[in-house]
C-alpha cells in the first residue's frame, strides 16, 4: 500500500469526504474555466479578424488609389494610418516606410511575408513589443511593394484578462462552496456514526440505558437501530443478572437472620459446652457472621448497580463518626484531627469508614492504624493509615475492583469477599468524592477519602427534615 493511500485511510471520514468534494470541485472548476477562457478568446479574435479584414480591404483599395497618383510611400503610410485604429507599414525591395517608429520589418512574421510574396492577402497573429498584434499583409501595385497593417489586440487582451480574473474568482468560490457544503454533508453523515460510537463508549463505561436517536431511515439509521437493539439486549441481560443476585441475596437474608440470632444465643452460653462443642459453636458463629456480611455486601453492590441508591444528607461530624465506628468495631485505631462538620450521608460514611478500617486490620496487619480527619478548603479528608506490609505496586490499581484480593496467595481468615473496598469507593463516589490509595511494600498503606465539603444538602437532593 502506498503511503498517501495509507495517510488518507487514517484520516477521519469527515476529512475524507471533504477532501473528495474539494478535489472534484478543483478539477471541474479548472476544466470549465479553461474551456470558457479559450472559447471567449477565440470568439473575440474571430470577431476582430472579421472586422479587421473588412477594414483592410477598404484601406488596401485606398492605398492602391494613392499609389496610382503618388509615389511618396511615407506620406501614403501617414495618410493610411489616419484611416483607422492601426499602424501601417509599406515595404519595397530595399526600404520600408512606417507610421510609427516602433515598427520595424522584424515585426512582420516570416510566414506572412512569404504568403504575401505570392500576391495574396493574408493575416497572422504575432507578438511585438510584448503586445499581441493582428498583422494583415497585402501586395501593392508597385512590384515587390507590400502593405502591412498592425491591429493592436490590447483591448481584447484587457477584456480577456478581466474574463480570466472573473473565471478564477468563480472557480475559487465554487471550490470554497463545495468544501463548505461537503463539510456540512460530511458532518451530517458522520454525526450519527459518531453518536453511535459515543454511545458504545458510554455503554462500555456501564451506562447501559444509553440509546441513540435513529434520525434517518437510511443505512445510518439502520446502524442506530441495530445498536439500540444490541444495547437493549445487553441491558436486559445485565439487569437479569443483577436482579438475580439481588433476589438471591434478599432470599438469603431471612434464613441468615434466624441463623444469626440462634447462633449468637448459643455463643452467649458457650461456657456451658464441652470444649469440642464450644469450638463447633464458635465455628458456626464465625461463618454465619461471614455469610451475613457477604449477603449485606452483595445487597449493597446490587443497590448501587441498579441505580437505586438513595442518598440521605444530614449533618455529620466526621471525627465523631470515625470515633463511633472505631468504638463499635472494638478496634484500637487512633482517631486524630479536627471535628469536621459537613453534610453527607452518615450511614454510607459509616460503612466507608468501617470497610477501610476493617481493611487496615485484615490486610494491613492492624498495627498502628490511624484515622485522621481534616478539612482543606472545599474538601474534607479522611485518611486511614496502617503500618502493615503495604501493597505491591501492581496490585494498587486493582484494589477497588470487586472480588479482588491482593493477598490471595496467603492463607488467612476468611473475612470479606473483596467487596469492602469496592463498596467504600462506590459510596464515596455517590457523594461526589473519591478514594485514593498510596502504598509501598514494607511501609504501610494509606487510603485517602476526599469528600466535597457541604454546608447544606445538594439542591437536587430530597429534603431530610
Amino acid at each position, binding site marked *: 500500500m502506498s503511503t498517501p493511500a495509507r495517510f488518507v485511510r487514517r484520516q477521519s471520514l469527515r476529512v475524507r469526504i471533504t477532501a473528495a468534494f474539494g478535489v472534484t470541485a478543483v478539477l471541474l472548476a479548472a476544466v470549465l474555466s479553461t474551456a470558457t477562457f479559450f472559447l471567449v478568446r477565440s470568439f473575440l479574435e474571430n470577431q476582430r479578424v472579421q472586422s479587421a479584414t473588412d477594414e483592410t480591404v477598404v484601406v488596401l483599395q485606398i492605398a492602391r488609389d494613392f499609389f496610382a497618383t503618388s509615389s511618396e510611400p511615407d506620406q501614403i503610410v501617414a495618410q493610411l494610418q489616419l484611416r483607422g485604429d492601426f499602424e501601417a507599414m509599406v515595404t519595397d525591395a530595399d526600404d520600408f516606410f512606417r507610421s510609427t517608429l516602433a515598427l520595424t520589418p522584424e515585426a512582420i512574421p516570416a510566414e506572412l511575408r512569404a504568403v504575401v510574396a505570392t500576391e495574396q492577402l493574408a493575416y497572422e497573429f504575432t507578438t511585438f513589443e510584448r503586445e499581441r498584434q493582428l498583422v494583415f499583409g497585402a501586395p501593392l501595385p508597385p512590384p515587390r511593394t507590400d502593405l502591412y497593417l498592425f491591429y493592436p489586440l490590447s483591448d481584447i487582451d484587457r477584456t480577456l484578462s478581466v474574463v480570466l480574473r472573473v473565471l478564477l474568482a468563480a472557480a475559487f468560490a465554487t471550490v470554497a462552496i463545495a468544501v463548505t457544503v461537503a463539510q456540512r454533508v460530511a458532518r451530517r453523515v458522520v454525526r450519527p456514526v459518531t453518536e453511535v460510537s459515543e454511545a458504545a463508549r458510554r455503554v462500555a463505561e456501564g451506562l447501559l440505558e444509553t440509546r441513540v436517536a435513529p434520525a434517518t431511515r437510511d443505512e445510518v439509521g439502520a446502524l442506530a437501530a441495530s445498536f439500540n437493539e444490541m444495547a437493549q439486549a445487553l441491558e436486559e441481560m445485565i439487569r437479569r443478572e443483577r436482579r438475580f443476585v439481588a433476589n438471591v441475596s434478599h432470599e438469603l437474608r431471612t434464613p441468615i437472620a434466624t441463623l444469626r*440470632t440462634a447462633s449468637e444465643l448459643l455463643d452467649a452460653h458457650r461456657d456451658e459446652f464441652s470444649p469440642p462443642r464450644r469450638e463447633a459453636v464458635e465455628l458456626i458463629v464465625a461463618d454465619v457472621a461471614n455469610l*451475613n456480611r457477604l449477603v449485606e455486601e452483595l445487597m449493597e453492590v446490587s443497590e448501587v448497580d441498579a441505580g437505586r441508591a438513595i442518598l440521605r444528607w444530614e449533618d455529620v461530624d466526621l471525627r465523631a463518626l470515625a470515633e463511633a465506628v472505631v468504638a463499635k468495631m472494638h478496634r484500637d485505631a487512633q482517631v486524630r484531627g479536627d471535628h469536621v462538620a459537613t453534610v453527607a450521608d452518615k450511614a454510607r460514611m459509616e460503612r466507608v469508614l468501617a470497610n477501610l478500617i476493617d481493611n487496615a486490620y485484615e490486610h494491613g496487619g492492624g498495627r498502628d492504624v490511624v484515622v485522621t480527619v481534616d478539612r482543606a478548603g472545599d474538601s474534607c479528608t479522611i485518611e486511614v493509615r496502617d503500618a502493615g506490609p503495604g501493597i505491591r505496586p501492581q496490585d494498587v490499581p486493582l484494589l477497588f475492583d470487586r472480588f479482588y484480593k491482593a493477598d490471595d496467595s496467603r492463607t488467612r481468615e476468611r473475612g470479606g469477599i473483596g467487596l469492602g473496598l469496592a463498596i467504600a469507593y462506590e459510596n464515596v463516589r455517590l457523594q461526589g468524592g473519591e478514594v485514593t490509595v498510596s502504598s509501598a511494600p514494607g511501609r504501610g498503606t494509606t487510603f485517602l477519602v476526599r469528600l466535597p465539603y457541604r454546608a447544606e444538602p445538594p439542591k437536587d437532593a430530597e429534603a431530610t427534615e
Partner: protein
Amino acid sequence: MLINAVPEKILLVEDDRLVRRATALALADEGYDVLEAGDADEGLRAMRDRRPDLVILDVMLPGERDGFEAAREIRRSSDVPIIFLTAKTDTVDVVVGLESGGDDYLTKPFAPRELIARIRALLRRRRAEPRAEKTVVEDLEIDIAGGVVRKAGEPVGLTKTEFNLLRCLVERANQLLSREMLLELVWGYDYLGDSRLVDVHVRRLRAKIESDPSEPKVVLTIRGLGYKFSTEP
C-alpha cells in the same frame, strides 16, 4: 435481673416462624417474657389480653394490616414502646412509618445484641429529678415528677418516648441539644444512630403540645445544630 423480679413482657409480631422463634429464644434468654404473634390481628389480640411492656413489630406482615397499621391501632389505647423491624429493601420508608407511633426501628438482619440494647433503652425506667416545681410555658404545664403534661388544663397523652424526649428538653431548658445528644439521652444510641428518629419524635411532640405545630414556640429548631426547649416567650 433481680431474683423474683417480674419479667417484662415483650410482644413479638413477626410472620416468619423461624425468625420469630430464634428472636423469641434470644429474648427469653435475656429474661424477658415473650409473647409471639404471626400477624397483626393475632398481635392486637395479645396486646389487649396480655398488656405487654414493649412491642416488636415486623413492618411487612401478611394479611390486611401491616406493622404500621398495627402500630396505629395500638396507639389508640396504649403508650407502650414500639420497635419496628424492617428489611433494608422494603419499599416503605420506615421513618415515615415511625409517624404511625413507632419509637425506634431496626433493620433486618440485626444482631440480637442490638435488639436487646434497643429494648433496654426503651424500657429503662428513669428516676425523676428531685425537682418539685412544675414547668409552665404559655398554656403548657409540665410536671416531670408526676409524669403529667397539661395543655390549657387538659391532660396531653404522650407516649413514653415522647415524654422522655420532653423531659430531656425540659431538664435542659433554654440549652441547645444536638440530635446526637438527644439520640443518646432518649434512645441510648451513640453517634451512629439515625437522627431522623429525633426529628420524627419532635414532630409528634410538637403536634401534641404546640398551639401551632407549624410555628413552634416551645420546642425550637436550631437549624443545622439541633433543638431547644424555650421557656422564654
